[in-house]
């Protein structure tokens, strides 16, 4: 059962990812990403982290993607031409991607960490539940939590600065 879910989700995630990279039209790219994100959420669930999965769906597939859609709609998602101005890039880029994957894969597979080969230890019930995560956020990770809020604020300000149509006073 688990295997089925994993492979299904994995294929979804990969498909989405490839879609993002391959789709000429940004809009389709966005949609592909949504697929990808949902599949990821499934994987998170499989990894018994319910809250993250939920957040994934809500924050990403919800808020962020909507933002994307708006912007694409605003600037007009015209498809980009296949013309490649940088010499060698078209040839090197995939090569580099492959290299990255191979190296990371080797790193993982050659790793002597025994735990990697397991499903992970048995965890007590509630592992990854909102309660647990919330406690961690407020105890151990209070500062990052607060800091990220400030970060969000700054990002918002930045977005306003950049995108708002302001009359510069001279």
């Amino acid at each position, binding site marked *: 059962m688990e295997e089925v879910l994993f492979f299904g989700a994995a294929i979804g995630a990969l498909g989405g990812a490839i879609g993002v990279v391959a789709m000429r039209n940004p809009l389709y790219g966005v949609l592909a990403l949504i697929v990808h994100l949902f599949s990821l959420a499934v994987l998170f669930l499989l990894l018994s982290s319910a809250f993250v999965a939920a957040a994934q769906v809500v924050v990403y597939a919800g808020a962020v993607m909507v933002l994307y859609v708006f912007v694409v709609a605003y600037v007009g998602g015209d498809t980009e031409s296949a013309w490649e101005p940088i010499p060698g890039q078209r040839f090197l880029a995939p090569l580099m991607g492959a290299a990255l994957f191979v190296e990371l894969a080797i790193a*993982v597979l050659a790793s002597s960490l025994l735990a990697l080969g397991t499903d992970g230890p048995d965890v007590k019930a509630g592992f990854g539940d909102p309660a647990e995560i919330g406690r961690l956020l407020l*105890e151990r990770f209070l*500062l*990052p939590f607060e*800091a990220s809020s400030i970060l969000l604020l700054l990002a918002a300000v930045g977005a306003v600065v*950049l995108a708002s149509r302001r009359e510069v*006073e001279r």
Partner: protein
Amino acid sequence: MNFHAPHIDYAALSPVIALTVGLCIVLMTAVSKPLRRTAPALTLLALATTAGLLIWQWDEETDLISGALRLDGLAIAISLIAILTAAFAVLLSTREPAVEEAGSGEYHALLLGSVLGMVLLAQAQNLVSFFVAIETLSIPLYILCATNLRHERSLESGLKYLIVGSLGSATLLYGMALIYGGSGSTDFAGIAAGIGKESVLGDPLVLVGIGMAAVGLAFKTSIAPFHQWTPDVYQGAPTPITSFMAVATKAAAFAVFVRFFDVALAPESGDWQAPLAVLAAISIVVGNVGALRQSSLKRMLGYSGIAQAGYILGGLVVASEAGVNALVFYLAAYAFMNLAAFAVVVARERETSYGDEIGAVQGLGAERPLLAWPLTISMLGLAGLPATAGFIGKLYLIEALVAGDYTWLAVFIAVGTMISLAYYLPVVAAMWMRPGGEAAETATPTPAIAGASPEADPIDPEAGRRVYLVAPALLAAAAVVFFGIIPQPLVEFAQHAGSSLF
């Protein structure tokens, strides 16, 4: 289910709090025009307060908020450098077109946000706070780079910085993930313990993780070959921001670089020292040769920044207390030298039509000695000539390197310094050895003039006399000379920082 709020040492946390509060207040000023005028002053106030609090906490060495942060000598030293730089940046930003564009309140708030990121980063000793801090540092900078909205270059630099920067963060993140996987812990002590285990030591997973983390940090400190954003962004960004980036970012990033590698990854030092040394050598070469024959001063300083980063990395490579001391010392010296230079560049690009082209400083010695001297001193200092802090800094680094059996890297520093003379001294020559009138013919006007006229900034013929530009320049230059002749105070400052790690 019971919840234990973590213990919070407010005294030690006070600098961060002060900054945050200041940030919010400054942001509030954005609401109305009259208030907006007060933004710079408030910013300075916030910075001053923070600095004061940091100095108050000078001898503190504690973990904060269940180990997310660590306030110690290194953190305080680096934070002070960052804050000083920010203060300079605020001064230089006076009458900066970019500020008008972005709105004074927002602009300064973002600046403070970035500083907050740096202060956090300097203290971070937990992967999560580390990551958040580094993003809090970067994201405002992405924006600030682009704030000169009417300038295509500004936007371009913003976008480039954002893309490559995010790529760097992503790599860093993945590296963190791997390290977390290898060690099973997110805070530095735990990591050190985790990867120190016999079974894990030298595990490819961890090592590749270290590699990715190194890439992310090398990117922030603009170490070659992860440097390429630097010249473009430095050139495109509004000059005050460039000065801030050039110094503060480097300082903060190096702080966490040191903490992460010399504390968390200390057990693996045998494996990462050599590659980092090679990276240092590469950036020394790339930065120095790249800076040759650059007509744009900011771009030249960008490349020189790459080379300098290479020198500084040397201090980290040896993974010794002396090394960290040297690193901090050099960062401080580097801060003064660069700030002096950038202050002059700002003054000239507002004063002349040459932007940051080298032609802008031609004949400066006769025309504006008060600007010429700071730039001269900063150039000589960056070139590591004696009687400047730069010389002592190099001396300190080389001493640490030789003691750490990295003499070959020391030789690289020497060679790099020679090459660097070939681009620092021509600036001096332009100021003192060519008549100003000549500038008109020789210097090529910037595309800003040649290209789209809407981009043209108003020229302020008096900029060269504005106290808010001349004073910082003189101050920084004076510091360069002072610490070149009486380095001991700065040395102790550095040693205080270094001693807290070992």
